[in-house]
């Protein structure tokens, strides 16, 4: 009986580790697509960003994050405004991630640690980026849904991208009385500025 119990616990333990490994492999593939895009000199800046944007939109829980960061303003808005906001937000998210990853494109990295958080049912993957003078750790929070993985947050130096965005958006939303349609204009304008910078 003890033997079977041991085997049972062992298999459960292994299965969790295998699950984490599978998530890490998936993440590595997607990160490499982004970093390779930066290294590919045949791509124009615009096409490079569009490729990166597509990768980010495929792999981030963009809609869920958009709703979270909008906070109170989400509830008050109509369907069409929400749709426009989600589109704007997805581009904004892509611009943020692309801009950050651009800085890491000439450095080497390793996925150093992968851990399954049972309580929240997410996988935390540490990515260590090495430069000549040191290293920085970026933690990816990944959730599985319908046999697919989605990044739900990025943590750099203990700073969560999603929490920062929520704080930033809330501050700006207060200025427009939590009116998501007015905020859409602000977000659209910011995206235009960021897009010009990344594609110039």
């Amino acid at each position, binding site marked *: 009986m003890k033997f*079977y119990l041991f085997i049972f616990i062992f298999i459960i333990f292994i299965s969790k580790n295998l699950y984490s490994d599978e998530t890490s492999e998936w993440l590595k593939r997607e990160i490499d697509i982004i970093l390779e895009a930066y290294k590919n000199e045949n791509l124009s800046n615009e096409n490079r960003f569009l490729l990166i944007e597509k990768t980010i939109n495929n792999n981030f829980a963009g809609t869920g994050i958009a709703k979270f960061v909008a906070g109170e303003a989400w509830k008050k808005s109509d369907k069409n405004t929400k749709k426009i906001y989600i589109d704007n937000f997805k581009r904004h998210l892509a611009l943020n991630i692309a*801009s950050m990853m651009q800085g890491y494109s000439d450095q080497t990295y390793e996925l150093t640690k992968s851990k399954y958080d049972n309580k929240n049912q997410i996988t935390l993957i540490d990515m260590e980026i090495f430069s000549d003078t040191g290293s920085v750790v970026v933690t990816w929070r990944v959730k599985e849904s319908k046999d697919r993985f989605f990044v739900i947050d990025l943590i750099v130096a203990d700073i969560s991208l999603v929490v920062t965005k929520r704080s930033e958006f809330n*501050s700006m939303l207060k200025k427009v009385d939590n009116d998501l349609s007015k905020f859409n204009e602000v977000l659209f304008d*910011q995206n235009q500025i960021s897009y010009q910078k990344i594609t110039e």
Partner: protein
Amino acid sequence: MSKKIIILFFLFFSLLSYKVIASDADQVNTDSEDFETTTIEDEIYDPLEPINRAIFSFNNVADRIVLEPIAKGYKKLPSPLQSGINNFLSNLRAPLVVVNQLLQGQGENAIQSSGRFILNSTVGVFGLFDVAEKIGLEEKEEDYGQTLATWGVGDGFYIVLPLFGPSNLRDTSGMVLTMMTDPINAYAVSEGEAWLVPMRTAVNAVDTRSQIIDEVNALRDNSVDYYAAVRSSYYQNRKAAINNVDDSELTPLPLISIEFE
């Protein structure tokens, strides 16, 4: 027969564990109530916001014109030289780190940091080489702001200090205490070399800034409200430092749903 039941039981649970992971993730939905569960923005008490924003704008201009270009130039120095400067500055901070670790009751860490300081100051040639790291004595930072927080002192209101950047009432008090009690600065002043104090602060600022050029630019170029983004980043970073969080598992988890269109 009993063996078959155990095996069946075992297989059932193995399958179930996979099923639970997948199905529960599908069922995570964000509804309007979820937004009220976090008070991230409300936690930041910023009654001086208009003044802070003005100082922040000034700092931002100063950063663009002075600090960032110098930091970019510094980044072009040979990497062993940059590492040497970074190690040297970090070693100068070590005595106060030990004091703060003792004040926080972290005896083991204080011994480790003392060991680091002695080893790096001698074998590591005045701290230019981090030999302690190579034998497993890891660097741990503690300051008076963290000590005060550990003693139960609250954040106080948010302040943006001219040139020094984001802070709060507690951490500003901590910074003043650091200036008053730093033995290296005190020694420099007593020897009539007071100019070394602002010089050390300036080199520290350039060294720190050079390590976050890309991150700051990414945040600055892509924020709808850069001030709020920096404020939130400052609080998250300080909270993690106070709690000595090494594991990102402890960083607050936002409630995010996965949705398919």
